[in-house]
Structures are given as structure tokens and as C-alpha cells.
């Protein structure tokens, strides 16, 4: 048995990762913070397909809740083989319009939350001298989009965190990588106007948005032994937008 913990897994990319990893044979822990029904539906889908797992409600921007979650998961399954740090928020605004509460929330969830989960899950992986951490980054970590200073800064931090943790934990058998998607068909893209969507599509060489399943496929690959010699990398999958 292998156990995967995915944060923010009740919808979007996190949900796709949970479903994919369950199909890969992982027992999946679906972390979520608010969407009880959606998280339960993800678990039901997994179980209907013959998989197994549990839902776990915790705000990963709160260290005490993260510690309790990791402790409970470890008690339940005795191991954590894979952490997918995915929970995050976007609060786009131009610098002079920036609300500092939004800045704090983004930093707390998109950066500190990744640290908290990596530290606590890493502690359990360290015991086994084996584990994989995959951080959900974004093409915005490298690409400058007006209005995304906060989100870009948090994803830039995730990229740096990924590289440093890979160096720190490599000797202990723990690999750390990141996936940096471009525009992915999620609720965020759905909310855009048709004109805005077309404007974005023109900038993407593959001329389409990516799908959450495609992101999950890269996560699955990075988690697998096929990528056993890959660590500290940020895998960009953006249809070529960053070229």
C-alpha cells in the first residue's frame, strides 16, 4: 500500500490528482478546508472505482491543524508516501489596488501552507527514508502577468522551496519536484468571458487550455519510479505560453 495526501483536493487540479493517484493504486487522503460535500463526492468516486482513502478537513495555512492532520493520517495508515502540496488561492490585483489582507491570505496558504505540510509530512517520510513531495506551482512563478504580483511571488517562492528541499532531503531518499501549469480549464477559467478566453488562447502556441487531468498525469509521472532520478525540478506544462 502507498498513501498519498493531496491538499485542496475537493475540486479542480487537486481533485484530478486525487482521482488519478487512486487509479495508480494509492490510498488517497483528500484534504479540503470548506467543501465537505465536494470532498465526499471525490472519495465516493474513488471508492466506486475500487480505490480507497479518506477525507480530511484542515486549513493547511494553520500549522496546528497541519500537525494534527499528519499525525492522524500517520496513525490511520502508518505511512505517507506522497504529498501533493496543491491548496492555494488567487487574489489578483494591481499593486496600488492590493489589499493587504489578501496578501497575507495568499502568503499564508500558498507559501506557509506548503512549508507546514512539507515539514510535517517530510518528518514521516524521513522515518522511512523514502517519499515524494510534489508542489503545485504555476507558470506565473516565472511569467510576468500584470495583476498577478502576489500569486507570482508565492509561486516563485514555491519554485525556490522545491529546489532547496530537494537538496536538503535528497540524501534521505525524499524527492521534491514541482509542476507549473499554465492556463488550466478549472472554475477560474470558466469564470472568464468568451473574449478574455480568446485573448488568452491567442498567446498559447497549442491554442487550447490544459486540463486538470493533464496536470494530474504529470503529478502521477513525477510520483512514479519512472522519475526516480528527478528531483528539484519545476516541470512547466503550459502549452508553450512561456516560450
Amino acid at each position: 500500500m502507498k498513501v498519498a495526501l493531496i491538499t485542496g483536493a475537493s475540486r479542480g487540479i487537486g481533485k484530478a490528482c486525487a482521482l488519478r493517484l487512486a487509479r495508480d493504486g494509492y490510498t488517497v487522503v483528500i484534504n479540503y478546508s470548506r467543501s465537505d460535500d465536494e470532498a465526499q463526492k471525490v472519495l465516493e468516486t474513488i471508492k466506486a472505482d475500487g480505490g480507497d482513502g479518506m477525507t480530511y478537513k484542515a486549513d493547511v495555512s494553520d500549522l496546528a491543524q497541519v500537525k494534527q492532520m499528519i499525525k492522524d493520517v500517520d496513525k490511520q495508515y502508518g505511512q505517507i508516501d506522497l504529498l501533493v502540496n496543491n491548496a492555494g488561492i488567487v487574489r489578483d490585483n494591481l499593486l496600488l489596488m492590493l489589499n493587504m489582507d489578501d496578501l497575507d491570505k495568499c502568503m499564508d496558504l500558498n507559501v506557509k501552507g506548503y512549508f507546514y505540510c512539507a515539514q510535517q509530512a517530510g518528518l514521516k517520510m524521513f522515518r522511512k527514508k523514502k517519499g515524494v513531495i510534489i508542489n503545485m506551482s504555476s507558470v506565473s512563478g516565472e511569467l510576468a502577468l500584470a495583476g498577478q504580483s502576489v500569486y507570482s511571488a508565492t509561486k516563485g517562492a514555491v519554485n525556490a522551496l522545491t529546489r532547496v528541499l530537494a537538496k536538503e532531503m535528497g540524501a534521505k531518499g525524499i524527492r521534491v519536484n514541482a509542476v507549473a501549469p499554465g492556463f488550466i480549464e478549472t472554475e477560474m477559467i470558466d469564470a472568464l468571458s468568451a473574449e478574455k478566453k480568446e485573448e488568452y488562447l491567442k498567446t498559447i502556441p497549442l491554442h487550447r487550455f490544459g486540463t486538470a487531468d493533464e496536470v494530474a498525469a504529470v503529478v502521477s509521472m513525477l510520483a512514479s519510479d519512472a522519475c526516480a532520478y528527478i528531483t528539484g525540478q519545476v516541470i512547466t506544462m503550459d502549452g508553450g505560453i512561456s516560450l
Partner: protein
Amino acid sequence: MADSEIKAKVKELICSNLGVEPDVLDYDTELFGEDSIGLDSVDSLEIISFVDDEYGVDMTGVGKEHFLNIDSIAAYISEHKDN
């Protein structure tokens, strides 16, 4: 568990997993820093993992003063473990 048993287990961990000879390691021997037996920060991860696994005590983010020597590590464990 008595403090002496905890100290003995921590010493055993340091000797068996971190390559320290038992005869150079007393309970008050400095573990990290210039005048120490030369453990480094990566070695501290091994100690944190062992303490978590063996005693269920979380030493992540704990101050360096608790890692001075086996005495201080054992004192932290005693103070925080469930009895």
C-alpha cells in the same frame, strides 16, 4: 519511562545512525558547533525523526538550545511526551 532510559536510547541512536563512537559521547557532550563532536544540521533531522517516531514528540521548529546535548534532548522529551 525514566530520563535515564530516554538518554540511553538517544545515545544509541546517535551512535548507531550518526557514526559517533560511544566512548566519546557522554550525556553532556556538546553535539553541534565548534567544540562539539561534530554533528551537523542534517544529523539533527535524524534526531527529530527518531524522537517523533519513538516518543511521539514533535521537535520540528524547536530552538537549538534543546539540541545542545543528550541531557537537553531527553529533558525536552520528558517534558512533552504523553505519560
